[in-house]
Structure formats: C-alpha cells, structure tokens
C-alpha cells in the first residue's frame, strides 16, 4: 500500500464522513428548531380547504408565502444512490422533504402572524428540485414553498 492509495481513498471517504457527521448534526438541530417554533405557532392554524367557511367573521385577507431550499448531505445522497440500485423507501430523502416542508409551513405561518392574521386558508404546497449549473456534479437540493390566504378571524383566535 503506498500513500497514493490512501490519498485516493481519502477523497472518497472524507466527504462521506463529513456528510455523515455534519449532516446528522444539522438535521437534529433543524428538527429541534422546527419543533420549538411549531409549539410557538400552535395557535396559528392552517387549513387546506379551498373556501373560507360561511358565517364566520373574516376580514383582511392576504396572500402569505413561505419557502425553503434545503440541500441533502453527501452521505445521504450516497445512501440514496445505493437505494436506487436495490429499491425501497429512501428514508434519507424522506426526512429531507419532511423538514423542508415543515420549515416552509412555519415560515408561511410566521408571515401570517406578522400581518396580525389568525388563520390561514387554502394552503398549497409546491415542491421543486433545484440544480446547480456547471460541472457534472449536480446539486441535490429541493425547494418547498407553502402558500395560502391569511385572514383575521376572531373565531380562530387562540
């Protein structure tokens, strides 16, 4: 075994290791932050129903948007590539999508709160992969946006 061999192996293993350590740490921290903010925004409800129910007092509708672009780490994309061979649920991507989605919804709710609204109706979610230009190494990240109509409605005031 010469040094060249270890050098070559190192270039493959190092990003995997970095991805594993920092990716896990990052995800854990993000989920903790999501849970904390979800608790804070518990009273701000969001509904996916298309119509604002008749008979409730509602005023001041505003379109609110929240979005997040989140990248997968190297270790996860490696796992996903393996999954691509054997098939099955890509749990490494599932958590990525879940936290992006929850983040987007949280940001939307935060905007609604800043506007002084009480509830968000007709929430829609949109997901789109984002790729970087140049090189053969495509960026694996996704954008999730959540949008809806925030209204002031005393009925839903928490």
């Amino acid at each position, binding site marked *: 075994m010469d040094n060249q061999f270890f050098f070559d192996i190192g270039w493959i293993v190092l990003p995997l290791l*970095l991805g594993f350590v920092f990716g896990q740490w990052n995800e854990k921290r993000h989920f903790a932050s999501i849970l904390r903010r979800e608790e804070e925004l518990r009273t701000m409800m969001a509904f996916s129903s298309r119509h604002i129910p008749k008979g409730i007092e509602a005023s001041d*509708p505003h379109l609110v948007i929240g*979005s*997040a672009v989140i990248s997968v780490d190297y270790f996860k*994309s490696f796992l996903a590539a393996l999954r691509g061979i054997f098939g099955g649920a890509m749990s490494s991507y599932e958590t990525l999508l879940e936290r992006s989605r929850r983040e987007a919804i949280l940001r939307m709710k935060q905007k609604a709160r800043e506007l002084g609204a009480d509830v968000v109706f007709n929430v829609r979610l949109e997901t789109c992969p984002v790729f970087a*230009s140049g090189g053969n190494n495509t960026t694996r990240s996704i954008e999730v*946006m959540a*949008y809806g109509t925030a209204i002031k409605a005393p009925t839903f005031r928490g």
Partner: protein
Amino acid sequence: MFVSNVEIIPGKHIAKHLGLVHGSTVQAKHIGSDFMASIKNIFGGELKGYTELLETSRTEAMERMLKEATALGANAVVNVRFSTSSIAAGAAEILVYGSAVVLEDGAGG
C-alpha cells in the same frame, strides 16, 4: 391591489371577471451561490442564498402579474397559483397566475 388564493373573499363579491393574468421569471443562480451550494451538498443544510433568490424572483413574477391585472382595470387577483420548474441546470422558472377581477363590497352577487 388585492391578491389572494381563495375564490370567495368574505364580505366582498366579484362584480366583473377579467380573465387570466400571469407573470413569470426565469432565474439563474450566480457562481458564488453555486459554489456555496456545492459545499452545502457535502454538509447538508439550508441554502439561504437560493431561498432568497427564489423569493425575489417570485416577488418579481407577482409584480408582472399585478401589472397585467392593473392594465385590465382589475382591483384584485383571486385564486392565485404558483408553479416552479427547473427548466435547465442552474435555471428555474417561476410562474404565478390567477384570475383578474373587480371586487366590490357586499356579499352575494
């Protein structure tokens, strides 16, 4: 101008329908944020540069839609939908569309 993604606004009714209005932008990312993105691809985490970029282009697309609606004489755009697609590596198209209407106070109609 009033923008919403519900069809019926409480306390108001649609006096006139003016048809579909839309606005779109095709946005490319610049080298700097691409470089950051490739680093983030190893460590994972949010790409703040991209989030902001897409937000800006979404605002831009919305402004274009509103301009079209204003030209038609509308005072509101209802039933707004967003759509994003990666049309090529490094570029994304953002489309916003909705129905331009004239809203008047009072229920029914």
